[in-house]
C-alpha cells in the first residue's frame, strides 16, 4: 500500500491555498502510508534561476553552505531552510558547477531535486508531522503532488521516501511494487544513471530519466515503462506545467480523479478529495489502466 495525492489548479485564485489543500489530502492518506511522506510543490520561480532542493541532517548549517556558494558578482544565493531541507536558488548558468561542488565538497548533503519552480520535501514519519515540519499548509503554488509510504521493497528511510526526481522540474511518486527493479537498476547503472537506494520506485524514476535522456518525451517514457516495468504501479509525475498519471495494465493500485472548473485532483482513494472546494459537484472518475494522462496548463 501507499497513498498518492495530486492537485493541479486551474483557478489562480486558489494558489495561496495549494499547500493547505495538499496537506489536508496528504493527511487523509495516512492509513495507506504511515512510514514516511513527501511532496513536491511548484511555486514561484525565475527564468534565469534554478532551485536546488537539498536535504541534510537535523540542524545542519545550510547558511554556511550557502555562503560557500556565493560569488563576488552574484552575492549569496537565495536560501530558505525548512527542517532538514533547504531550497537554494542560484543562477541557472551556475547549476553544473554548483552540483559538482556539492558532490565533491559536501557529500553530507543530498540533492533531492532541481528546477525552476519545483521544491521537494520528504521525511520519515506520519504525514501530518512531515507536512507540519516543512510548513506545507502555508505554501503557495500552481500544483503539487504528494505521497504517503507504506514500505514494501526497501527500508523506511528518508532516502526511500517519495517523490523521486526524474529531471529538472520533474518528479515521480509511486504506489505499488516493481518485481524487476534489481535487474533494471543494474542495467540503468551501466547506462550511467545514478541510483542511490534499494528502493524500487527510485528505479522507476531513474528509468524515466534514462528514457528522456535518450530523447523520449515524458509521455513516451511512461508509455515505454508499460513494457519494461514489471509489477504493480500507479504513478503520478509532477511536471513544470502540471501532472501526469499512469496505471499498470492490470490496474492493481487504486486511482480516483476529480475535476471542476477550479482544479484537477488525484487521490488513491476518494476520501483524500472530500475536503476540496466544490467536490460534491466535481466530475469524479477513475483513470483507465495502461493509459497515460496529463493535466497541464498551456505553455
Amino acid at each position, binding site marked *: 500500500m501507499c497513498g498518492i495525492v495530486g492537485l493541479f489548479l486551474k483557478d489562480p485564485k486558489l494558489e495561496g491555498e495549494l499547500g493547505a489543500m495538499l496537506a489536508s489530502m496528504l493527511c487523509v492518506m495516512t492509513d495507506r502510508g504511515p512510514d514516511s511522506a513527501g511532496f513536491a510543490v511548484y511555486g514561484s520561480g525565475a527564468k534565469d534561476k534554478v532551485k536546488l532542493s537539498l536535504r541534510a541532517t537535523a540542524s545542519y548549517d545550510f547558511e554556511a553552505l550557502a555562503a560557500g556558494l556565493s560569488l563576488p558578482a552574484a552575492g549569496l544565493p537565495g536560501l530558505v531552510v525548512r527542517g532538514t531541507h533547504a531550497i537554494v536558488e542560484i543562477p541557472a548558468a551556475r547549476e553544473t558547477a554548483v552540483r559538482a561542488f556539492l558532490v565533491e565538497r559536501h557529500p553530507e548533503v543530498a540533492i533531492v531535486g532541481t528546477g525552476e519552480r519545483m521544491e521537494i520535501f520528504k521525511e520519515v514519519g506520519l504525514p501530518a508531522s512531515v507536512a507540519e515540519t516543512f510548513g506545507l499548509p502555508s505554501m503557495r503554488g500552481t500544483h503539487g503532488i504528494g505521497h504517503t509510504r507504506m514500505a514494501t521493497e526497501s527500508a523506511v528511510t528518508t532516502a526511500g521516501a517519495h517523490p523521486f526526481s526524474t529531471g529538472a522540474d520533474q518528479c515521480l511518486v509511486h504506489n505499488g511494487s516493481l518485481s524487476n527493479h534489481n535487474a533494471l537498476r543494474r542495467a540503468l547503472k551501466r547506462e550511467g544513471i545514478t541510483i542511490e537506494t534499494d528502493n524500487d520506485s527510485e528505479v522507476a524514476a531513474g528509468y524515466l530519466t534514462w528514457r528522456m535522456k535518450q530523447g523520449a518525451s515524458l509521455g513516451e517514457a511512461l508509455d515505454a515503462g508499460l513494457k519494461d516495468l514489471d509489477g504493480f504501479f500507479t504513478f503520478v509525475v509532477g511536471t513544470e506545467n502540471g501532472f501526469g498519471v499512469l496505471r499498470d495494465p492490470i*490496474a492493481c493500485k487504486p486511482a480516483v480523479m476529480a475535476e471542476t472548473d477550479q482544479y484537477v485532483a488525484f487521490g488513491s482513494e*476518494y*476520501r483524500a478529495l472530500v475536503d476540496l472546494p466544490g467536490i460534491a459537484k466535481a466530475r469524479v472518475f477513475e483513470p483507465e489502466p495502461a493509459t497515460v494522462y496529463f493535466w497541464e496548463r498551456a505553455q
Partner: protein
Amino acid sequence: MNAISPDITFDLADTALRELNAALHAATGESNARRWRVLNPNGRHAVAVGINAPLTVEIEGHVGYYCAGMNAEASVIIHGNAGVGLAENMMSGFVHVRGDASQAAGATGHGGLLVIDGNASARCGISMKGIDIVVKGSVGHMSAFMGQSGSLVVLGDAGEALGDSLYEAKLFVRGSVKSLGADCIEKEMRDEHKVLLAEKLKAAGLEGTVDVAAFKRYGSARQLYNFHVDNASAY
C-alpha cells in the same frame, strides 16, 4: 398505518460509521423503521455492510470500499459513485449505484441484484456465484472472471478478457467486447436466453427501453473446468 415508515437519518459528518453499521445490524425490519438515510459518506469504507434485514438504505454521496458488502434482503441505493468491492459477496436484496462503480463490483456475490447506472471498472462480477448484475455503462477488463453462476448484463462495452476461466455465469453484452478470456465464447442467443435477459432487464427497471435482440451472449466453452480423462496425466 405501518406502511408509512419514518425515516432514520445518520449524518456521518457527526456520527461514527460504526454506530450506523451497528444500528443497521440491530434492525430487524419488522418495526416501522425500515427507511434509512445516510448523509455525508465522504468516501468512507464499509458503509452499510452486513445488513441482514429488509431495510431500505439511501446513501447521499460517494462511498469508499465494500459498500453494502455481504448484503442480505436490504435495498441499498447510493446516490454517487462507489469504490472497490461494491456489494461484495451479496447474498440477496438489491444494491443500486447511481454513478460509477470501481473494481470488483459484485465480487463473489451469491444472490440479489446489483444495478450500476454508470460504468464499472475492472473485474466486475469476479467469481460471481449467483448474483445478477446489470451495468448500464461499460465494464473493465477481466469482468466475470471465474464466474460460476448468475448473470452479468452490460449495456455498453466490455474490456479485455471478458469471462476468463468462466464456469456457468451467463454474460450478455450489447456493445463491443475488447477480447474474450480463456474458455469464454460467444454463444447462440436462443429464445430462452432472450426471456432470461428480458427478466433481468425488467428487474433493473429497464423493461421496454432496451431491445434484447441487440445483445450477444457469452458463456463457457466448458473445456477448462471439466475433467477430461485424456488429460489425466497432466494432473
